[in-house]
């Protein structure tokens, strides 16, 4: 019954608050303590309300599912010998949610994707036979669906969308800052609290945090985006994205 800690806290606070109000008011006649009991009851009701918004799936199960997914994609990347950086596509360029494409050929120049790509695992994105890639769903693909509306292309709008998802929905960070300069987007995430096992695929796809940022940025700008670099500092993570033409 009390697997969710907010339910336990809510029940205890509401009970203590509701019982203390008549005791302090009728027996002791002390207004400040009666008011304190009222505030405890308010906090209890609030905790009970917030407990209903917690996901049913335990975090351990989520971590297990993430690990299984990451290991499967890592095995696929390793087996195919992919070494190109993944390109995050907006939903307007895929049939369905935003996805990431990993080119099969290790061509140093970035591929130009012009048309909408079919919803398949192996897709052809250009006229040459080598223009083939692996299109995968990333953690960022699912988070774009959490946005109430499509974010605008300015730095402020992107920052607001990232804050909404990373702070409000996923509770992964304390604050997010976005700077745009030319075709580069610098995102600073302070106190990111996300731990993930090391995997080969993160070298090409970016970590789950970078993946979420890249997917939302691609959706906001309506352009393909790739993760340029990712730096872990003491209490923040810096993600540099490159906007592709």
């Amino acid at each position, binding site marked *: 019954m009390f697997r969710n800690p907010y339910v336990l806290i809510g029940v205890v606070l509401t009970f203590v608050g509701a019982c203390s109000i008549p005791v302090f008011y009728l027996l002791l006649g002390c*207004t*400040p303590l009666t*008011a*304190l009991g009222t505030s405890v009851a*308010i906090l209890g009701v*609030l905790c009970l309300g917030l407990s*209903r*918004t917690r996901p049913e799936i335990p975090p351990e199960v989520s971590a297990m599912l993430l690990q299984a997914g990451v290991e499967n994609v890592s095995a696929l990347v390793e087996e195919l010998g992919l070494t190109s950086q993944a390109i995050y596509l907006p939903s307007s360029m895929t049939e369905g949610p935003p996805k990431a494409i990993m080119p099969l050929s290790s061509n140093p120049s970035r591929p130009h994707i012009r048309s909408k790509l079919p919803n398949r695992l192996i897709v052809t994105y250009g006229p040459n036979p080598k223009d083939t890639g692996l299109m995968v769903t990333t953690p960022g693909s699912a988070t774009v669906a959490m946005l109430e509306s499509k974010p605008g292309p300015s730095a402020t709008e992107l920052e607001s969308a990232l804050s909404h998802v990373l702070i409000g929905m996923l*509770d992964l960070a304390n604050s997010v800052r976005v700077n745009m300069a030319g075709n580069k987007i610098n995102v600073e995430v302070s106190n990111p609290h996300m731990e993930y096992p090391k995997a080969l695929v993160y070298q090409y796809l970016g970590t789950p945090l970078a993946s979420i940022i890249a997917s939302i940025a691609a959706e906001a700008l309506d352009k393909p985006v790739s993760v340029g670099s990712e730096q872990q500092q003491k209490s923040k993570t810096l993600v540099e994205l490159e906007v592709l033409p």
Partner: protein
Amino acid sequence: MRIYNVYIILLALFFMLTTFILSLSDQSSWDLYFSLYLIVYLIFTLLFTYLNPRARRLSNVTGYLLFAGFALIVASKVLSLLGVLP
């Protein structure tokens, strides 16, 4: 859910601070305490704009309940001014 914890802890701290300051100034009107709790609650609910939509909806419901309590207090004051209530 750290954002929920911060929200609840800040609310609890400010509720306690409000109670402490009002009790120091020797206020004995429960209505005043309740009205200030409502103001503190509304301020923090506005500040935490990044709460997820469901949590925001539920905290708004709590806000409506508190506002209904405040409306009852105002109504009782008006009725006592009109002489309907003692």
